[in-house]
């Protein structure tokens, strides 16, 4: 009897252990020998500092998962294959993941995929639903592993990151209060401390969307200060160009809808990029999903600036540092296209 082959994409989640267990158990139910392919798909931003940690973590996770499979197999005939995917290509959204899984499955004659319900490659938010949709599209059959989810925010003990958040929120709100009030008046200092205390205790856990880093986070704030003059300069240039077009009696506008795949992470970096694009006259972000920006452009020169990706490079500089800023422009890497109105 042919061995059952199953593909298990892994990521570092609380449910990954149970997913592996389910894959092994369900595979052995239908056949007596199992070929278990454990794969880790690395997201596109492996060149970032966080990414390096991730690719090191990948090897470690694969080793751990191999041990789990052997443990669960309990002497049954199970062969294990491991692979790291996405090292030589850029993986973006769910579609890329679905396609790379499909390609791997075709290469190894696999017809079943076991999916971790919490599956989230890299640092982006959980992408289960879009991934399931894309897997359906490429015709890959999958199983969602039935797992018991642990409560995720159940920790009462103030952890290391918890303290950092509390600390940062307190000083940000205290600073804001003092800017509005008088920093040398004892009453304002006292009430400010009280208000900042209440704010940080009640809102610290929702204030930051990504984990704070004691070195990186202040560095980002400093780099953001350098970003502001650049943004202002871009805004002035774009303003003059758009004003010239609007004030011409013939008004030579050329509105187009474009799609740009931005190489910045969802969350704050994407927000900063989308807002910067909107703030520059001539380009307007209509939608932002999974790093895919739908941008309406008014004049050709604004569109060319957008496709040259100056703002994107600057945002990468702010959030990931100088080395990451030097990436090809969206135009060169084929991530920018003009789309019709029905894309809305």
């Amino acid at each position: 009897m042919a061995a059952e082959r199953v593909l298990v994409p892994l990521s570092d989640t609380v449910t990954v252990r149970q997913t592996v267990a389910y894959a092994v158990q369900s595979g052995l139910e239908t056949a007596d020998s199992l070929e278990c392919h454990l794969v880790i798909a690395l997201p596109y931003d492996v060149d970032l500092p966080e990414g390096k940690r991730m690719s090191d973590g990948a090897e470690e996770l694969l080793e751990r998962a191999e041990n789990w499979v052997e443990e669960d197999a309990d002497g049954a005939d199970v062969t294990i294959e491991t692979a790291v995917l996405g090292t030589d290509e850029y993986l973006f959204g769910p579609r890329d993941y679905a396609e790379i899984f499909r390609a791997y499955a075709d290469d190894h004659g696999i017809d079943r995929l076991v999916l971790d319900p919490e599956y989230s490659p890299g640092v982006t938010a959980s992408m289960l639903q879009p991934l399931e949709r894309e897997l359906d599209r490429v015709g890959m059959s999958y199983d969602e592993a039935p797992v018991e989810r642990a409560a995720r925010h159940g920790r009462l003990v103030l952890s290391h990151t918890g303290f950092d958040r509390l600390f940062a929120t307190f000083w940000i709100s205290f600073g804001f209060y003092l800017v509005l009030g008088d920093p040398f008046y004892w009453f304002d200092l006292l009430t400010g401390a009280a208000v900042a205390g209440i704010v940080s205790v009640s809102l610290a856990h929702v204030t930051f969307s990504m984990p704070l880093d004691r070195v990186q986070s202040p560095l980002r704030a400093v780099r953001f200060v350098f970003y502001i003059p650049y943004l202002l300069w871009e805004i002035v240039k774009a303003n003059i160009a758009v004003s010239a077009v609007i004030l011409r009696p013939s008004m030579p506008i050329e509105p187009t809808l474009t799609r740009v795949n931005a190489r910045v992470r969802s969350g704050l970096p994407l927000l900063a990029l989308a807002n910067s694009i909107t703030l520059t006259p001539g380009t307007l972000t209509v939608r932002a999903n999974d790093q895919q920006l739908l941008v309406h452009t008014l004049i050709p020169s604004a569109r060319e600036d957008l496709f040259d990706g100056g703002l994107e490079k600057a945002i990468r500089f702010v959030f990931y540092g100088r080395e990451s800023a030097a990436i090809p422009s969206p135009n060169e890497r084929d991530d920018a296209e003009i789309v019709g109105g029905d894309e809305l």
Partner: protein
Amino acid sequence: MIEPIALQSTLETVRFWAIVLCLGLGVFFTLVSTVGVLRLPDIYARAHTASQTDTLGAGFALAGVALAFGWQHAAVYTVLLLFFVFITNPTAAHAIARSAAESDVEPVLAEEGEADDAEVAAETEGETR
């Protein structure tokens, strides 16, 4: 004795004209943006020029105000106000554009390759008049 007063008076004059320049530019860009909001053909195009008011229109006008207050607490306030406008307004513009997209407002798009300026302009004339 006369020197410091002369210097101060020159400084005052420079400051005065700097403020006038800032306010003039602010009014100019807001004017352009108002013209744009009235002339442009559809909601998406209008949202572009709305961001002109938010950026340079408000930016220059508030810079003039900050110059007038000088090294006072109120000047910090003005910068804060500008920062706040810069953060919130693109978000609002994005929300408006997205709500237009969700309620199926069709954008007016130029045909690829042959941008028919006259036609676009003619449409605008028809709509705003």
